[in-house]
């Protein structure tokens, strides 16, 4: 890893802990994260896709810089073959091509990427919030609170998500006879889908947070805080939560990357985002029959799903490495090479000062 560069060779394949002297926890995490090549590449790729998706076709009525919209039918240019080319580098009229009736695939893909990112963020926020609240309450207070909340989690965890999505899709489909919910859902299909998925995906996070709280509440610093007269709320928010935030952030990231695939899969099965609006999964499902004649209709949406999901996964991996307190990792290669005479290695004393 890049962060090891320049650090002295250590014994028996145990990598040295990052030189942490004089740095706050946040600074250590940031330094480690920025040293993770994969995460940085993921972050850059995701930022590019994010900016491109939200500025090109516009969002919530704000117009974008791209000349077509995702539902605009235009005359077919060259039978819809993509005009983008690498050599000579050109963008062309329809860079990703057009579908059979002449809609611009670039606009549709960008719209789909917007939907995926929206769903992802909504699910991350909602699932994270509910997961933390439920996990914290049941892990900290235990007793009846824990029993009730965890049984509720157990019930929700075994109800198939597909069924809930189908119910929601049905409700959103009933435009004529709906209350406030169906009118909201039919106007903001993807937002409603995200909220709904968020309401069922918090269970994994809740279990995880409960585990964290269970182990952290037994620690000495919590006892110390309690003896000093801190209230429950203060202990939870000021003492335990900051210590659990690493696990939380990492797992929210992983939930989000899974959420993108869930949204595309539901749209593919016809219970997620519905036409005339579009999403990456819906695009693939509409165009899989045309693979032999118009393969680009299939390639570009799939490529964007993979790119978004891959970059989120890499960011999550970087975050995990950055937050992992057991950063001393075994390295088989170094263990094998450790035969040469040992150099004076820095020994970290108990108070954290270095003793050469």
């Amino acid at each position, binding site marked *: *890893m890049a962060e090891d560069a320049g650090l002295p060779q250590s014994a*028996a394949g*145990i990598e040295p802990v990052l030189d942490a002297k004089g740095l706050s926890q946040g600074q250590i995490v940031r330094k480690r994260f920025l040293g993770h090549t994969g995460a940085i590449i993921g972050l850059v790729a995701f930022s590019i896709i994010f900016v491109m998706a939200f500025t090109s076709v516009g969002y919530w009525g704000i117009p974008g810089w791209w000349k077509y919209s995702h539902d605009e039918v235009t005359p077919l240019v060259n039978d819809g073959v993509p005009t983008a080319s690498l050599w000579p580098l050109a963008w062309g009229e329809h860079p990703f091509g057009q579908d059979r009736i002449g809609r611009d695939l670039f606009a549709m893909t960008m719209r789909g990427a917007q939907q995926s990112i929206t769903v992802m963020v909504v699910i991350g926020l909602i699932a994270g919030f509910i997961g933390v609240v439920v996990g914290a309450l049941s892990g900290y207070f235990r007793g009846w609170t824990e029993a009730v909340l965890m*049984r509720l989690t*157990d*019930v929700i965890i*075994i*109800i*198939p998500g*597909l*069924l*809930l999505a*189908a*119910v929601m899709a*049905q409700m959103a489909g009933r435009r004529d006879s709906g209350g406030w919910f169906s009118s909201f859902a039919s106007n903001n299909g993807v937002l409603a889908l995200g909220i709904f998925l968020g309401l069922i995906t918090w269970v994994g996070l809740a279990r995880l947070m409960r585990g964290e709280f269970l182990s952290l509440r037994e620690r000495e610093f919590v006892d110390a805080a309690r003896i000093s007269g801190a209230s429950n709320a203060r202990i939870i928010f000021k003492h335990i939560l900051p210590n659990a935030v690493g696990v939380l952030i990492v797992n929210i990231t992983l939930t989000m*990357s899974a959420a993108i*695939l869930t949204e*595309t*899969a539901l749209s*593919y*099965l016809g*219970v997620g985002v519905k036409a005339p609006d579009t999403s990456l*999964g819906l695009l*693939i*499902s509409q165009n*899989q029959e045309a*693979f*032999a004649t118009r393969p680009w209709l*299939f390639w570009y949406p*799939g490529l964007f*799903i*993979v790119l978004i*999901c*891959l970059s989120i*996964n*890499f960011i999550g*991996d970087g975050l995990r490495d950055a937050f992992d307190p057991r950063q*001393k*990792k*075994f*390295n*088989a*290669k170094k263990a094998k090479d450790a035969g040469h005479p040992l150099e004076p290695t820095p020994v970290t004393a108990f108070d954290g000062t270095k003793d050469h």
Partner: protein
Amino acid sequence: MVTYIVRRLITAALILLGASFLVYLLTAASGDPLEEFRASSAPNKQQLMDARTELLQLDTPAPIRYFHWLGGAAQCLIPFANSCDLGKNIAGQPITDALGHALIQTLTLVTGATVLAILIGITLGIITALRQYSTLDYGVTFMAFLFFSLPIFWVAVLLKEFGAIGFNNFLRNPEIPIAAALAIGAVFGVLAAVTVGGEMKRRLLLGGVVFMFAAAVLMYFSATEWFKNPGLGPLVIAIAGVGIAFAVTLLSAGLKNRKALQSALIAVGVGLVVYFVIQPLLDQATFLMIVLLAIAAVLVGMGIGYLMGGYDRGQSMRAAAITSFLVGFLILLDRFMQAWPAYFNNSRVRGRPIATIGASTPNIEGDFWTLSLDSFTHLILPTIALILISLAGYTRFTRASMLEIMNMDYIRTARAKGLSERTVVMRHAFRNALIPIATIVAFDIGALIGGAVITETVFSVRGMGFLFLDGIMHVDPNPVMGVFLCVAITAMGFNLIADLAYSALDPRVRVKA
């Protein structure tokens, strides 16, 4: 222990009751079961609507219908009474029948894929952990993330296009141009050079050998039209058998254990003799016979190991048993290859063997080998798709678990004792790394039965996922409830097994009674 299990079971039953009530209400609320008739212009529209109302008891409110259903479902708990009643679906078929068919379809689909994904995933995880921060590690990590990010329906369409249609076109005229053979050989060579550790010289040498070998084999295949008339023959089985014997002994007992190596080699020799003797018997094969032969192979191997004796009989027996099982598998593979031309030229298959949808060719007739090949060619694409997406999790998890174990004090102790690297890895590290993996595997098996909805949809397999989705689309609660019951019960059962297995494998963890 018993108190713990009983308490878990009671809780599970209560959770199941609550969740099933919710699922029933949700399904009933998810739409209008009469919708397809409302828009129709058939003269007997009212009659059809009445009939369906009657069938689904739409006049009674959904909560009451749930308790009616529960009454029928509760009869499943009476042992041997055979009075299980899960209701009927919208077409009037009893759910218990439909579930039986669907379960078989789903299990044939997911079993092979799961077993292979677990085996490959754990192997890759261990290798990448042992070669941490090598090219191989980075490559596999990247692939794992990539596979993790692939939507399965997208992979499935690609597989259908290139794996089925492309490969079938290739089989029509199986010639590999020399350039292609060289390119494929080069890919194998690079893979081998990356996989094997050690110095650059050794890597290059091995990569070169693999490249030459792969390219030569491909050219040979192309010249002899091997893909149309495949086969191994006794010579290949003998060479591969000796290789297997060495590899199995290396992993299970170490090459220094001469008795084990000799037992494994004798097992290969016996296998070769059996190859000639058994051919007439294999012509009348049935599934049961293959299973019995596999058991016999293992027993013969153990017998050889026992007769060889030595200071550690167990190791010889294990090495010989695994070797003879694998050689038996090679003989089976060879027999399948012999049946390939007959299957290929079957009037139903017409030279396009790899299928894109379904679980078997309609109306196909033939002996055991043809039918097995038929289900194999139908299973191969969904299996590859499932392996690809579930491989990543196992690889990453095994790697993390193995790295943590390799950091432990007892591994250093084992090294300090002067044990060989093989013993350290296989005995001390691998077994302990398997403990967390065992729980993950149990979880996954529990989730498997309902987890392949999209795969089943893409490949038109009428399994559990299809039944479930069909029930939702027709607003028909009974099939949905049937699938839900199966999935939930297996998931919760395997969760319990996972917890118990953890405490059984790791004495430091005790279940609280």
